[in-house]
């Protein structure tokens, strides 16, 4: 009997939601498990690094990596997984674009440690102890991973063959990718395995999109009663549907919340935040500075708004180090 193809899952800087998304396959996960061997998945099964090291190079058909890269351990693990795998899939926003952990690129290791371990009022730390990477004990040197100043996307560290977007990717997106993998129907390498058009095209509220959008102000979702049937941008809610790749089945919109851009850009866009900002800025109605600034008052954090999932993959990648405190 021919050997079953081998799959692996690994997480780096992520919340674990992508591993949840694998479980969200529900009984279809059993189909996947029956046609493949899952040889490495630390979030769900007890595998150790030495198990992976013992495998032959290239023996894993495909590895799905969720999470961005922010520690030396994550970098070592993805390099190891890369050498053991024929194909590497960036799985979810964090490995694809940097994700929410990528917003740490507004700070550095030292400023993050300072806030978390010494300034945070709910963390008593009278001795000012900060995480260390080495300890000498019983004449043994023990090492812990080092934390980088800058969070990186998976493809800034190792070569990535395919991308599954989303925070997290939907079970449908994952299942389609796995089926393409098993049936030898994957597109050209480098592809994002989701539709290549903007979410607005798939939006259930598309017909109510005004022909000409001209807003005096943006409203935050908690400030108004949002109509459940009409275009969110038309109601003054900042929705990134016009700039975001489709494929999420408009789940946020169906939940009466605006798109925040987790599926990232379409293939024609180089910098998601730049494109999203251009799209949103153009719907303000005012023609002079004071009125324009008033319209944008409810966008107090443009980086967190437009680069919520993509700062490390952006053209500028991070806040300039000189500007961090």
């Amino acid at each position, binding site marked *: 009997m021919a050997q079953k193809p081998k799959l692996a899952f690994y997480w780096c800087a992520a919340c674990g939601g992508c591993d949840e998304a694998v479980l969200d396959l529900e009984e279809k996960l059993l189909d996947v498990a029956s046609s493949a061997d899952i040889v490495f998945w630390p979030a769900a099964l007890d595998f150790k690094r030495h198990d992976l090291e013992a495998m032959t190079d290239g023996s894993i058909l495909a590895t799905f990596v969720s999470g961005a890269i922010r520690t030396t351990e994550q970098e070592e693990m993805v390099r190891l997984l890369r050498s053991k795998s024929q194909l590497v899939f960036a799985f979810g926003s964090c490995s694809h674009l940097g994700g929410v952990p990528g917003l740490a690129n507004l700070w550095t290791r030292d400023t993050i440690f300072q806030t978390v371990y010494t300034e945070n009022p709910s963390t008593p730390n009278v001795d000012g102890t900060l995480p260390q990477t080495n300890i000498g004990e019983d004449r043994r040197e023990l090492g812990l991973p080092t934390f980088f100043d800058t969070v990186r996307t998976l493809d800034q560290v190792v070569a990535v063959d395919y991308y599954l977007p989303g925070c997290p990717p939907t079970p449908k997106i994952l299942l389609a990718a796995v089926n393409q993998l098993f049936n030898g129907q994957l597109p050209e390498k480098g592809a994002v395995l989701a539709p290549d058009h903007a979410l607005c095209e798939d939006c259930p509220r598309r017909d109510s999109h005004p022909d000409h959008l001209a807003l005096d102000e943006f409203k935050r979702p908690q400030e108004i009663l949002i109509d459940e049937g009409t275009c969110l941008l038309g109601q003054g809610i900042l929705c990134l549907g016009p700039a975001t790749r489709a494929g999420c089945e408009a789940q946020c919109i169906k939940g009466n919340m605006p798109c925040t851009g987790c599926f990232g850009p379409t293939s024609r866009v180089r*910098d998601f935040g*730049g494109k999203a900002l251009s799209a949103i800025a153009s719907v303000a109605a005012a*023609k002079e500075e004071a009125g324009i600034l008033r319209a944008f008052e409810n966008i107090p954090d443009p980086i967190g708004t437009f680069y919520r999932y993509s700062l490390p993959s952006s053209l*500028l990648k*991070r806040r*300039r180090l000189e500007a961090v405190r």
Partner: protein
Amino acid sequence: MPELFEPRIVAFFCNWCTYLAADLAGTSRIKYAPNARVIRVMCSGRVDAQFVLEAFARGADGVLIGGCHPGDCHYQEGNYSTLRRFELLRHLLKDIGIEEERFRLEWISASEGDKVRAVINDMVEKVRALGPLSRLPIAGGPLEEVAA
């Protein structure tokens, strides 16, 4: 040595007003700092935020956008789009640590050759005083450059 630093300014000038003003400055033999690399666009409204971000990422120390005065746009309202995008992008760039003097929008009509001189000279001096814009390498860069 800051006095040796020559800033690189990428200048997006609209075809109908500011580019003609720069042309007028040239034919009038008005002298000004040679630091601006002018890119002609049909309308300042064509300048996507990505163009500005890419200029900064690829080595510009400053980015200048020049368009028609309000009400004078060849396409009626293109420069209003520019202004809206400029205000939001200016906020974003400030938050990302790019000083405000490095990003500038000016309305310069086709007859204002002298304003081209004044704006570019002024911007070059201000950016020169700030020094070169440090940035991460565009293609990811080796570990050492991001490791703490």
